[in-house]
């Protein structure tokens, strides 16, 4: 398939991998974090780990919007959906994310809540138009990639003068999350994530550009290479990171030049700023409360804000105490190091959010990569 096959060329991948193996210094360990779930998925699905030399290690970051959504917000969404007048429209990824007490949206739907799975935020506006007696709420999640389409749907609802459409906004911002991973000076040593560089976001960067990462690269002295989601993009970005480390550079480089510019997409940015403003603070699963890390609707659009329309009062909700999604999301632990992984937590019966979305680190490792744990066990045994 044109424009796809070129980025999945196995021959080219092997040749880049050989260059990585040649240039990675034998006495040094390289640990890079891929921020995005899209990269995590590509690494697992295409078996990229198999192409890397043993001293180049990838750890997974928090860039999976489903994974970082705290339990309390899913609880809020379920309570909303159970109101008789409400039709909750959601992306399908969220349906099986575990909420408090073993609940999830799929079970709420089975119990009679009017929950519809949609593919685009615009579909929610069309449902609101077609069913004027229903209060249609769009369960909006995602990083800067999906925020513009939520903004456009609010704009469309306003132009259509729909009074029965609102958005339960959970849009989050990428740069504060990267800062939270790197800004660990105040943490005890065991909780510090030590990475040598980042494979930077792909689709997020098409919207915000590469400039916002510059301050982070300089302040924390870590290289960032923005990369596309195709496997060759990832392999090439890893090579670029190895070179930056070897040369002592901490720059923001752009591997994804076919889609990303330094300044990003000004039209999308304008749409976002027109409708949304930063929240003072927002709770992230795994990262805790981060200042100025998420968006809410501006007062001028308060009428479309489900939190205000339905006066949603957050109730405290705790994760399953044994679930280590938090450490996995910060790159402190690998999925297989969690005690629940593959024992009571699997994609069929997820305990934590990382096991739900195909972009979640645990789901990706379970679905595509868990045979490597066995290989490791065998080689460990042989070594012993």
């Amino acid at each position, binding site marked *: *398939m044109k424009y*796809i096959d070129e980025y*999945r060329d*196995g021959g080219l*991948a*092997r040749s880049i*991998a050989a260059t990585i193996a040649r240039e990675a210094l034998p006495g040094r360990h390289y640990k890079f974090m891929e921020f995005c779930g*899209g990269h995590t*998925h590509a690494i*697992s*699905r*295409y*078996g*990229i*780990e*198999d*192409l890397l030399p043993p001293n180049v290690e990838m750890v997974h970051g928090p860039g999976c*919007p*489903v994974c970082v959504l705290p339990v309390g917000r899913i609880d809020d969404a379920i309570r909303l959906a159970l109101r008789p007048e409400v039709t909750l429209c959601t*992306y*399908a*990824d969220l*349906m*099986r994310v575990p909420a408090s007490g073993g609940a999830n949206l799929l079970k709420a739907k089975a119990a009679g809540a009017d929950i519809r799975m*949609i*593919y685009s935020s615009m*579909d929610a506006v069309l449902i609101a138009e077609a069913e004027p007696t229903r209060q249609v709420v769009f369960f909006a*999640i*995602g*990083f800067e*990639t*999906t925020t513009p389409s939520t903004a456009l749907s609010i704009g469309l609802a306003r132009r259509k003068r729909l009074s029965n459409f609102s958005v339960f906004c959970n849009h989050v911002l990428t740069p504060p999350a990267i800062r939270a991973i790197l800004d660990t000076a105040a943490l005890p040593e065991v909780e510090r994530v030590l990475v040598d560089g980042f494979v930077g976001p792909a*689709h997020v960067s098409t919207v915000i550009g590469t400039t916002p990462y510059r301050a982070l690269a300089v302040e924390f002295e870590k290289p960032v290479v923005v990369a596309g989601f195709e*496997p060759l993009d990832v392999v090439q970005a890893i090579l670029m990171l190895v070179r930056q480390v070897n040369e002592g550079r901490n720059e923001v480089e752009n591997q994804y030049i076919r889609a990303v510019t330094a300044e990003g997409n000004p039209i999308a940015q304008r749409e976002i700023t027109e409708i949304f403003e930063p929240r003072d603070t927002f709770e992230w699963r795994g990262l805790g409360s981060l200042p100025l890390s998420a968006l809410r609707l501006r007062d001028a659009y308060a009428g479309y804000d489900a939190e205000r329309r339905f006066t949603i009062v957050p109730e405290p909700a705790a994760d399953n105490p044994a679930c280590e999604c938090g450490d996995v999301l910060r790159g402190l632990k690998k999925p297989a190091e969690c005690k629940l992984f593959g024992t009571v937590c*699997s*994609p*069929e019966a997820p305990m934590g959010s990382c096991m739900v*979305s*195909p*972009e979640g680190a645990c*789901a990706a490792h*379970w*679905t*595509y*990569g*868990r*045979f*490597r744990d*066995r290989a490791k066990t065998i080689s460990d045994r042989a070594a012993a």
Partner: protein
Amino acid sequence: MSWPRLRVRKLDIRNGLVDLSHGAGGRASAQLIDEIFRESFDNPFLNQGNDQAVFEAPSGRMVMSTDGYVIWPLFFPGGDIGSLAVHGTINDLAMAGATPLHLAAGYIIEEGFPLADLERIAISMGHAAREAGVAIVTGDTKVVERGKADGVFITTTGVGVVPAGLDLSGDRARPGDRVIVSGSIGDHGVAVMSKRGSLGFETEILSDSAALHGLVAEMVGAAGPSIRLMRDPTRGGLAATLNEIAQQSRCGFLVEEARIPVRPEVMAACELLGLDPLYVANEGKLVAVVAPDAADLLLGAMRAHPLGRAASIIGEVTHDEQRFVQMTTAFGGGRIVDWLAGEQLPRIC
């Protein structure tokens, strides 16, 4: 004195709707069966008008299978619920290496369903059955109130006869055996999804819905005793089928992504929707596991049949206590091809 003969007006197929009387067992039921099903299926067993079909039993082992069809939309590029209900059950019989003989069909129809659509479905079933050389010899029709069903549900049951000396079963795969797929995967699922309301996208892809017993007969003729098993990878796609066999046979698989045929249009649609073609349903493809020394012979026989032209040896059976289906990716790495958890969900970004 003589009574005038009761004149029954013919069904208004163009504008009429199925109502509860059509399932009540009275004259309206008889008329529906007569004018829609008997006309479309037209065979001596059905024409006798009994509640059952009586036929000669062949000697040897027989095979029987049943399947329910609830597909939505009812009509999709390359087929409809009727042709699917014929092909699907024939294929379940054929996967035992059998020659299908007869089908029975049961309908649950929702009140208000257009007679024109019902006739279109019945004609399509009759056509598919005649093309496959199998007769729909008996059936049943029920009508339920509006909202208690979704248009029409069909169940078909089939019987067939298994050639002597043939023993195909999911627990017979052995390490070293070769795995062959009969053609491109994912066509049916993508064709159906392209017509689902909220997804609607333009595509030329047709469902691969087809009866496979002709292909199977050629395969059995060429390599009969060396074939360990056959499966049609329907719901859950090739991935589910390989995992089922791995469980049954207590083995693993190692397949090569580059050898699995996928049409570019199907690949493109899957890219767009965030799906993996390995998990997308097929209705006219089969997977065969065969002893290694007969693999090339079997592949040749398959490729000589119109439904097996794109057949490909995709990998082999491995010894694996954990029963992993592993795949060498075209990119050069390795991965598992796991069971599908829930429905395949589109990714959001």
